[in-house]
């Protein structure tokens, strides 16, 4: 999923300062899974903002709504009619959601309450770890399903580097050395041969694109 974390309240307050009627909009998808933007988190943030307004003697109307997803036009449509009643929308969607909503309601003020961080997995309750950098050219088949771009701090395709110690990365001693993992797994699977040849330089244009990347599927058009 896409993970995100709530911005500090001081930053959020600064963004919403000019506005009195605020719609706090959550997303029931990725950000709910990582406990930063789902219905509960919408409730927490709205409650905190209402209390804050009261303490400062400010007038504020803070309403809550949570969409199943904030990145799909069909779900965003549900805000039609509602959005016009507010001065601003404080979105707890990821960056994709915030912009998708802003794209459908271009006259509205949509503000991000979260810092979108990475694509990752829920490793265990309360722990999310990055594991994909959306390079557009998945090579996991050659690296025992351990992404060298994401999980090696130096993105080596012919690793490890000289800093790998006892299976840990020199850059983050809590992180496993991805190359240690790759070598061990391929060794166990009897496929160390996959590492014999020099893996050539990546085609980064697939990740970088020429500006924002897109996918077009004719067969999916309604």
């Amino acid at each position, binding site marked *: 999923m896409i993970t995100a974390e709530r911005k500090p309240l001081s930053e959020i307050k600064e963004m919403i300062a000019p506005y009195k009627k605020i719609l706090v909009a959550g997303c029931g998808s990725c950000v709910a899974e990582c406990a930063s933007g789902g219905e509960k988190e919408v409730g927490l943030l709205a409650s905190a903002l209402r209390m804050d307004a009261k303490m400062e003697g400010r007038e504020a109307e803070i309403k809550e709504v949570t969409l199943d997803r904030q990145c799909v036009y069909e779900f965003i449509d549900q805000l039609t009619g509602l959005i016009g009643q507010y001065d601003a929308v404080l979105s707890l969607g990821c960056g994709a959601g915030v912009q998708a909503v802003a794209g459908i309601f271009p006259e509205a003020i949509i503000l991000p309450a979260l810092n979108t961080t990475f694509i990752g997995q829920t490793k265990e309750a309360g722990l999310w770890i990055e594991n994909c950098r959306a390079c557009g050219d998945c090579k996991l088949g050659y690296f025992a399903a351990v992404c060298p771009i994401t999980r090696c701090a130096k993105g080596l395709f*012919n690793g490890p580097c000289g800093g790998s110690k006892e299976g840990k990365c*020199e*850059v983050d001693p809590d992180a496993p050395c991805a190359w*240690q993992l790759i070598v061990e797994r391929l060794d166990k699977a009897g496929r160390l041969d996959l590492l014999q040849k020099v893996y050539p*330089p990546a085609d980064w244009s697939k990740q970088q694109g020429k500006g924002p990347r897109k996918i077009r599927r004719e067969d999916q058009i309604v």
Partner: protein
Amino acid sequence: MRTDSRLKRVLEKGYFAVTAECGPPKGADPKVIKTKGKILKGFVDSVNVTDNQTGVVRLSSLAACVLLKKEGLDPVLQMTTRDRNRIALQSDVLGASALGIRNLLCLSGDHQSFGNQPQAKGVFDVDSIQLIQLVRQMRDNGVILGGDALSAPPRIFIGAVANPFADPFSYRVIRLGKKAAAGAEFIQTQCVYNLPRFMEWMNKVRDAGLHEKVYILGGITPLKSARMAEYMSKQVAGMDVPEEIINRMKSVPAKEQRQEGIRIAVETIKALQAIEGVRGIHVMAIEWEEAVPQLIEASGLFPRPEL
């Protein structure tokens, strides 16, 4: 491929080679480099200049190499893949060759988070092995990545690094083989304090026949103090400093520790000379270049051969 690399000629002729490292300053004064060059001249065959080591901004390796060349030394340009993409790297290889620099050491480099610019974007467009391969293509096939022909190929003696003390131990020699196959011609290792472990690594290297494919130069860093020994042991990744060495440094009063460090280094050099497949040493006397002449003389490696 013919080059004017002194290092290459020394190794080809079978002499035990001596290279050293010159750390560039955190400033624009060329005198620092010239001074270090003068200290090392005559005691070494070639001089490496590090490339923004540890991610700390310093006078560039390429510029320092040119300054050293003017002093009559044979420089080894170091290029990490952390700061430059393939366009810049290939361009710098052409530029270095045009300036008469004939040795290139290819490394991935220390991660940018360690240095004084932790907010910098780490490029890592290619890794060290891909770099070795592409430099070899430029030199031997006269093409850059993607196949476009060069009007004039660079003349470069290609080097790489090896760390016999990092994990996973079993895979290290396989990776060395990969570097050799990619085009590495000489190897400079991480500094050696743990001789038994180094010899174990060399056994594996010889078993794989790699000592005949690449010239291996063992790394030497003379210890300045017991504190340095401890620091390197605990704080520097990929470093193996045995307890005996640390204790030996501790057993000597502070003002005699430098000499003890030199003594240990000389013993290590002599031991390396006796190992089959070790074709030289690479002295990394960081910010202690003045120790190099003493070290080389005490090891019986002075004067350097006349070619």
